[in-house]
């Protein structure tokens, strides 16, 4: 494995290797300076003490860094897996349930698309907590949002269309069906 990448094991390796390198460079510098002075006959007890102190100080610091690195991790707070779209209005009948279905897959123009299984819908109703649904929006829903599990999806502005249909099971006075252009930023 010689090609450094951003994968997790290699990231850990690179970070720890970095600490090694610092240790090596410091030690190499101290050793080189000591050798030079020894060759010139200038290396005395004070120099020896200075070398040792430098090495011990530096290596203690590096040792702490290694231990802390292993224990604490890099502290990356990973971005959430779930993304929400802007809200889209639901209607026109406030007394009807509506069902939202994806009719044109959400894509970026590159031929890839968000798998439908990754998409759910959040019902936004005034005065109530938002409710996650599989697509059936309860009576009185003002808006809905797309909810996408973005795991391993590339960043992009994903376009698509959904169809919002009044549910025949309710007493909707308007048998309406609307096609809505939707998008979500991942």
């Amino acid at each position, binding site marked *: 494995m010689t090609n450094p990448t*951003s994968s*997790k094991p290699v*990231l850990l390796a*690179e970070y720890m290797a970095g600490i*090694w390198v610092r240790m*090596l460079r410091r030690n190499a510098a101290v050793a080189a300076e000591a050798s030079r002075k020894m060759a010139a006959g200038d290396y005395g007890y004070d120099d020896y003490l200075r070398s040792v102190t430098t090495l011990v100080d530096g290596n203690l*610091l590096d040792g702490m860094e290694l231990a802390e690195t292993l*224990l604490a991790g890099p502290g990356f707070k990973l971005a959430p897996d779930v993304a929400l779209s802007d809200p889209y209005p639901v209607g026109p009948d406030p007394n009807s349930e509506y069902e939202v279905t994806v009719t044109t897959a959400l894509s970026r123009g590159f031929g890839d698309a968000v798998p439908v299984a990754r998409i759910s819908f959040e019902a936004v109703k005034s005065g109530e907590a938002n409710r996650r649904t599989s697509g059936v929006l309860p009576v009185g829903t003002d808006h809905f949002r797309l909810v996408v599990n973005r795991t391993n999806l590339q960043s*992009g502005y994903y376009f698509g269309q959904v169809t919002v249909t009044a549910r025949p099971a309710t007493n909707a006075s308007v048998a309406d069906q609307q096609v809505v252009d939707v998008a979500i930023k991942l």
Partner: protein
Amino acid sequence: MAVGHSLLAVYGAFDQVVMENPDEQVRARIEQFLPGTTGPGQRGWYAQIQEFVRRHATDPAAAEFPTLDDAFDELTGRGGGFDAASQVVGPRERARLTYAAAAMRNLVDSGMMPRERIPSLETFNTDRLNEALSQAGDSTSSSGSAAPMPGDQRLNRLMGMMSTFSGRDDWTSMMAEAADEGLVTPDIAAIPAISVLGESTGPVITLGNAAADALQGESRGKCTGEVIDSDGVLCALLTTEFERSTISIDKVKSIVDPLNWDNCNKFFVHMQKLKPAGGRSQVLEYVSTDKDLYVIKTALKYWKQEQGGSAVINYDLSDNRKGTGDTGQVRVDSGYIVLNPINDGQGTRVLTSKMVAIDGLSPTAVAIYASVLGWVAIGEMMMFDCALRASAAKQPGDPLVPWQNSPEVDAENHASISQSTTTGSGAGGPRVPPVAGILMAEASSRMADFIESTTKDAAVIADKWVKGTLSVKEVADYTGKVGARLASEPWRLLDDMLNRIPTGPSAGSPSADGPEGGGSP
């Protein structure tokens, strides 16, 4: 010397302090100013970027970054005042410098920036911080709005505000007040502090240049930074949201095509048109912080679409990068640029997202590279500034490409797949890389092999490590397996290296490793 490297040297000073000082108080204070940069695995980003540049430089010996004094010299016009006409240091770079100088002034004054063991800082003349801060009110050619107060008075007022500035979250209100009083120019105040992690919001700035309507109105913006896992690759996820109330979407659309980015910002050295594929436009993006030293080339595909009055560009790595001239350092690069009309069509909101991973750089280093230097600029002021000076942005042989919805027709005569060679070898033939380069490459490789080979649970351990969820017991078990080799391997490597590095004035001496001396990884 390159402006980008000077800015990195200024921000890198914080990282060098963090690396050389385990003092939790010092690290906590610096974390306040640069959130997400001081934790284990986060810190050390400056040496990573230096190493990255060395590794890809045509002449590694010329890839040393400037000392802090030299960096401030360049960014402040060598004490002679800011040269607005030069266009070398624009409002964005000045905003970055102003923030770093204010943070450093604060830390130095409170004794929280110990400079021992950091050659670049030990000799640093801190008067340069005042110089940088006082220049934040000097007019720029793009705004033309000179602050009315002399520099020393502006500095005194800014220093008076320092007591309320203890971290990034305080910067917005400080800049709003400073802009109101004319201590900093509006275009500098409007740019938020850099965001490696979390959200950084700029103040709402009222622009009042009567010379042109487009320069009036309101400006506001914010940036966010996060780390995201994409198929096991850790990426920086950077977003921006900026708006200007008096620059219309049509003006921004006229310059937003990626082929125009090199007309707008020097970080984009060149944007070379490639043959479209499947209706998708393609471009070979050349970026660099010092184009004479190294260039990263990345083949991108992009798609332009309008929807409900908005204009959108999606981009990602090209499906086939081979043969395009792509140099391969960028592993992930995807995102969007969305233009929304605001203010009854008179203004525009620009939203951008970028998910990016670069070989050899941690997500922290990538985020800083992108934020301090170029990519994030796209969403900040680049689009507005470029739209305002569209006629000036036209360059001989490189006209602005207008907006046109995808798909792009493949006109054969337009095809221009690059025949260029990749960077890295340099015109001067092979050179001996610096000691640090040999060490880092060798140590990274050995460490990676080592981690893979010492435990079957390496992937699980690494995954937990990244999330910071390793337990003490897991660490004890893990280090029990690898402990002896962890302790002994550096010495084996040192022995190897000392035997391999040719003897000479630079071998094994601190000077060979550049200005960081004892150096931090």
